[in-house]
Structures are given as C-alpha cells and as structure tokens.
C-alpha cells in the first residue's frame, strides 16, 4: 500500500480546522462552540502526525499527545463553567451572555 502524500493530509486537516472555526462563529450553544474548538485541535493533531511521518520522528506524536491531554484539561474546566452558567441563567446561549459591553 503506497503511502498518501503528506500534503493531502494537511489539506484535509486545514478543511477540518476551518469547519471548526466556522462552528465557533455560527453556533450559539456554548457546548457546541466548545466542541468546535475540539475539532480545531483535532485537525491540528492530524497535521502534526502527518508531518511526524514525513520526518520519521516521534516528536509530532508527542506533541499530539500533549495537545490531547490539554484538551482534556480544558474540557474539565470548560464544562464546569458551562454547567455553572446554566445553573444561574438557565441558558447556555452565548448570545444571551452579553451584559458586559461598552
């Protein structure tokens, strides 16, 4: 099985990343925005692993590993925050969280 070129993987990862960005921009639900961020991180990981294979190194894998761990840490904090917000406001629609503005 002939390996697929790294460029192809990077393009797929760029597309996934952009879809993640789009999710943050158009979803109003905080949880979904957050999931979109996870998608962006995931896309970055894909690029990392692809590059790692190109250079035949494990650095890329290690970096991916760290990104995943940190994503987990972010999830813990983020979901706790979302739950706390929901408890006090009965909503997690970010468009309704706009008391603070100029």
């Amino acid at each position, binding site marked *: 099985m002939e390996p697929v070129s790294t460029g192809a993987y990077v393009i797929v990862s760029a597309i996934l990343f952009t879809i993640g960005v789009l999710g*943050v*921009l158009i979803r109003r639900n905080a949880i979904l*925005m957050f999931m979109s961020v996870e998608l962006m991180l995931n896309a970055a990981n894909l690029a990392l692993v692809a590059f790692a294979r190109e250079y035949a190194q494990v650095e890329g894998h290690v970096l991916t590993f760290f990104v995943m761990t940190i994503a987990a840490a972010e999830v813990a904090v983020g979901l706790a925050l979302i739950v706390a917000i929901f408890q006090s406001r009965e909503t997690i629609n*970010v*468009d309704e*969280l*706009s*008391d603070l*503005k*100029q």
Partner: protein
Amino acid sequence: MEGLFNLAPLVILAPAVGLLINLFIGGRLRERSVGWIASIAAGTSFVFAAVLSFGLARSPAGGAVYVTDWVKLPLAGVDIAWDLRVDTLSVTMMLAVAGVGTLIHVYAIGYMHGDAGFRRFFVYLNLFLVAMLTLVSGNNYLVLFVGWELVGLCSFLLIGFWLHKPERDPETGEIAGYKNTAAAKKAFIVNRVGDFGFLLAILLIFWTFGTLTYGPPVAAHGEEDGAHGGAATLAAQEAEVASEDGLCVPHGEGVFEMAEAFMAAGCDVKLGSSRVPIGAMITLITLLMILGVTGKSAQIPLFVWLPDAMAGPTPVSALIHAATMVTAGVYMVTRSNVLYELARGVSVLPFGLTSPGVLTIIGALTAFMAGTVALAQWDIKRVLAFSTVSQLGFMVAAVGLGGYIAGMFHLVTHAFFKALLFLSAGSVIHGVEHGHHHAHDAPEGPEEKTFGYRHGVLDPQDMRNMGGLRQKMPATFWVYLIGALALAGIVPFAGFWSKDEILLDAYSRGDATGWFALILLMTAAAFTAFYMGRQVFMIFFGAPRTQAAAHAQESPPIMTRPLVVLAFFSAVAGFLNWPGTHSFGHWLQESVAYAHIADFNLALALLATLLALLAIFFAALLYYWRPALRADGADRLGGLGRLWRFLNRKWYWDEFYELIAVQPFNGIGRFLAGRLDGDFLHDWFHDTLIWRSFDRAAAFLGAFDLKIIDGAVNGLGWLAAQAARYLRRVQTGYVRQYALGVLVGAIVLLFILVLPLLIANSG
C-alpha cells in the same frame, strides 16, 4: 574657581529639602513655620545661585557639573547623564527664578494666611522651584524636558488650587471651583500639544546628532569676532563629519558644535528611507520647538490657557504665569540660539520664511493682539494677564530677531515688574475684599452702583468697583506706580531699557520681518502704556466708587515688604545693561554664541518714549481729568463704539466662536443624541469633554484664532465620540462576534505574512 560650580546641585536641592520637610512634618507645624521653611528653602537656593554667579565672574566660560548617570545604553551609544550646566545664561535664570521666587514665597505667607490648603500651597511652590531650576540648569535637552513637564504639572496643580471655592463667578454665574478646575484642565491639555512638538524636536535632535547634550557654544565671542569657532577648523573637519555618501556622522560631544560642523559640511540626515538635508532638518527641529514655545510661553495659537490660568492664587500668577515658567520658551530658544541662527540661513519654507522669522511673526502678532485686548478689560488681573501674553510676545519676537540679549534682558526686567504688578494687584484685591467685609459690618448709605454684585458677591477684581485707593493704600500705590511705569517703558525704569533693546533689534534687522515686527511692537508698546495708565487711574485716583473701595485697607507688612524690594529692582534693573557698558550683554555673551550687542539708538528711544507718554496722557485725559466712568457705568473709551465693543468682547470671540463652533457642534451633538444611547451622552464626552470645554472655551478671553486650538481639543472630543460610536457597534458583548474579529485578524495577518512570499515564489 570652577570648584564653586560643584555647588550647582544645591541650588535645586534646597527647595527640594524644603518641600520634603513640609510634606512630611509640615502637618505638625504652625502655619507660619511652614511658610518660612519654604521661603528659607527658596532663599537658600538664591544664595547658592549668587555664589555660582561669583564663580562665573572669575571663570566666565562656565562648565558642566556631572551629577549622576541617567539613561545609558552603551550598545546603542546612548549615554545621557544628569548634568547641570553652569554658565552665564543658566545662572541668570537661576538668579531670577530663585530671587523672585523667594520674594513671592514671603509674600504668600501673608496672602495665603488662613487658607485651608496653606501647606499644600507651599509644597507646590517649592516643587515648582525644583522643577523650574531643573529646567534651566540641565545640560541636555532631556533634563530640560523633565523640568519642562514638571513645571507644567505644578502649573496644573496650582491653577486648580482653589478647586473647592464655592463662590460664583459674577459674570457667568458658574461656581468658581468648577472654573478653576476647567482652567487647570485647559492649561494641561493645551500644554500637552506644545510639549508634543517639543518632544518630537528632542527626538529629532537625538536622531540627527546622536546626543542631547548642549555642548559648548561654538562661536565663543559672537559674530563680530568673526570666529564661529573657526571656519577653517570646521572645514578641516568636514571629511570626518560626513561619510562618503554624504550622510552626517555624529562625532562630537555637543549638539551645537555638531550642528555647526554639519552645516559647514552640508551633509544629509537619513530619516526613514528618505534623506533630508541638514539645513531642512534643523529648520524642522526649530519649528517643532516653536510649537513647544507657543504652548509654554503662551503665544498664538496656544496662548489661550494663560489668561484663564489667573484662576490660581495671585502669588502663583506672579511667579509661574508671569515671571518664570512662561519664560521657559524664551530661555529654550536662547539656549538653542545656535540652531536658530543656522536655520536663519536656510530657506525651505514658503514665502522665503525661516524658522526664526516664523518665531518673530508669532511673537509680534501675539504682542499686538494681547495688547489691544488688555485695553478694554475691567478685571485687574485679566489686564495683567493679557499684558503678560503681550510682553511674552515681545520676548519671543526678540529672540526670533536674533536679539538674544534683548530677549533675556526683557525676561529679567519683566520678571521683576510683572511679579511686582501681580503681587500689588493681589494686595489691592486683598484690600478691597477687606473693605467689603468692613462695609458690610456697618451697612449704611444708599444703594450703590456696583459691578459684580449680581449674585450677591462683590467682585473685588473689577476695577470699576475701585477708585481712590491712593489714600487708603499708599504703599501699594507707590509700588504699583513704579511697576506700571516700568512696564509702560518710561525712562529710567527697567522696562524702558529692555523694551528699547527689542525695538532696536527689530529696527536693525532691516528686512521685511524686522519692519513688520517693529511696527507691531511699537504699537503694542504704546498700548501697554495706555492700559497701564488706565489701570492706575481707575484704581488709585478719583473718588471711591463703592463702599468696599471706601473702606479698603492697606495690606500687612509681610505682603508689602517684598513689594518694596521688587519695586526697587523694577526701578534699577535697567541699569544692568546700561548702554555704555552693556555689562549684561557681555555677561550673556559668554554662553550665548550668537548674542550681539546693539548700540543705543537715541532717535528710536525718543520715539518710543514719546509714544508712551502720549498714551499715558490720553489715559489721564479719559480716566483722570474726566470721571473714569459715566453714571451708567460705561467706559470712557466707549466712545469708540463698535471698536470698543470689539475689544471688550475680546475681538468678538464669543460671537465668532458661537458661529463657527458651538452651533455646528450643537448640531452634531443633536445628531449624536438622536443616534446614541442615553448613557453615552450623559457620559464623559458630553458632560466633560464637549460641554465643559465648549462652555469654558466660551469664557476664554481675548482670542481671535482660538479656533485652531479649540478646534483641536474639540475635534479630538468629536473624533473620540465617533470612534466610540463605531467601537460600540463592534464591541457588542457577543462572544461570536469577538471570535469573528479574531478570524478577520488572522486572515489579514496571514495575508500580510504569506502574500509577499507567495509573490516572490511565483516570480
């Protein structure tokens, strides 16, 4: 004797010590002790300055005193030390500042007696001395700038000193404390504009010369020696000051010698990616400095803050806003005389103007304009304030004409007699207020016609409420008279000699600028004599026009004694530069490279004196031989009709202003109000920046082209309002839109970073 110079830091240290003592333990001392500590600190400073001047008498070349390292970046070749310069110029300023300062400190002990902020006042005064002495004693532009900013700060604090004053202004009915606050703000903001120019000038100096140190003046003995530091040696240096591609190479110690060398070499300075000839660069630097001068020394167009600054206590008006701080601009130009004289030979501006020419025109116009407005004011301090603006115009015009000695000479004599006049005016006000209270204790007599009673408070500064004070306050009268004669330029008082030198410089310049300045200054001098005559006659002669004036009392000795000293100097200071010996001129020549001594011109002096006497005669005609005021309170000059109103209403400034600024602005305001949320309009823009500055600006005196500065201030407010409106639309509080902002930024950034590479790759 150079060892004596090492005392220089003590000149600054003395008031600093006084300041610290009062700051930390002043609260536990009695009022009088606080005042005397501050005064003694100032006096000590004067003594040290005097010692320095003895040292200079022995070795007149002067020198720099290293105090400590300051900003130092060895790799970049930046090494700015905190050096003090001891030479005849700086010591002259020190003597004037510390001398007049000491007298004013003593006077203030009496004047501020019983004021709740007594200690604060003296702390500020001492701080001001520290700042002003720093300004004049620095050996480089950065120290000068530190002092420059600090005096601005002190001025700001002292103008707003009586911020809690509850009385209402008799004319506008606004609370005095608010007015004082507004005046302080205005002074600060207007000065920032000037300071900005000066800062740019300093940056450019650094950029061009690689240093900010003044260095020794190049032409050690002026033009007549034909030296210029030796044109031959400069030519020899030419090779090393310019690199082979014609760029200037900073090489020496001081700014001035390098400026001379660069000019001789005719090299270029790199500014960004373009090359600027050194002459144009120096012109640019000096023009930016002029912006600083117009701010600090209250010249057109930035003079608007000074008349309002009289909101501060009278000793402050005398010390800061008449005698010392406002002359900083004149000092700065004199200090930079080498740059100005070099710029005089460069014509890159339109109409063949040069930057000293610009300075001359600004000074002469200011002198004339302020002189006319002073003719038609009733407030005793306001007359003096406009007079100060006018006299500063004289000095600025003088230094612009190259008459550095004349400018500095007038600076010194003006410091004496204007301080005297302000302090005497304070004494008059003090006396009238006293009389007012006294009259209230025994309320008898018919309903009297007074001015400024409209809100139940007598305006003790309105000259229409005075009259006949000669008998009530004899000491004040005599010193006031001396001050007025000195200011009016009557032989043999100080003002005559110094003003005459300025006129002479304008006359001997001989070019169009010189003639222009001569005509305007001559007229302004006649106006000066007239309004001083008018003032003296209105205040001291005739019959008392109010109960307050009738019951006025002489001020306590602690106030009058300093006045006598000042009066003495106002009378004799002119002999410093007696035409035969020119001792002041020779003294200054040691440190001002381009100072030249002008010969006395009898015809010119006679003409000026004649004009002054004529003006005083007219003043007497209108204000002495006939009652100063008609029954309806109209001024005698009212016969001028429209012209009088024009002057009294400050060149129709209010109406003009209403027309060009307020109405359009109100229109804009309504437009904004219709569009914006209420809280915004109740917010700072509307209330503070726009409304207040417009309101206050409407009260701003005598200005005809205020629109420039007010346009700038209010334009800024308007700009901020627009920006806020836009930002309000962007800053919505919605997370998703912030994220959108991030994405837009990312795209733009990627374009900036990637596109050039992409183009390069494909190309």
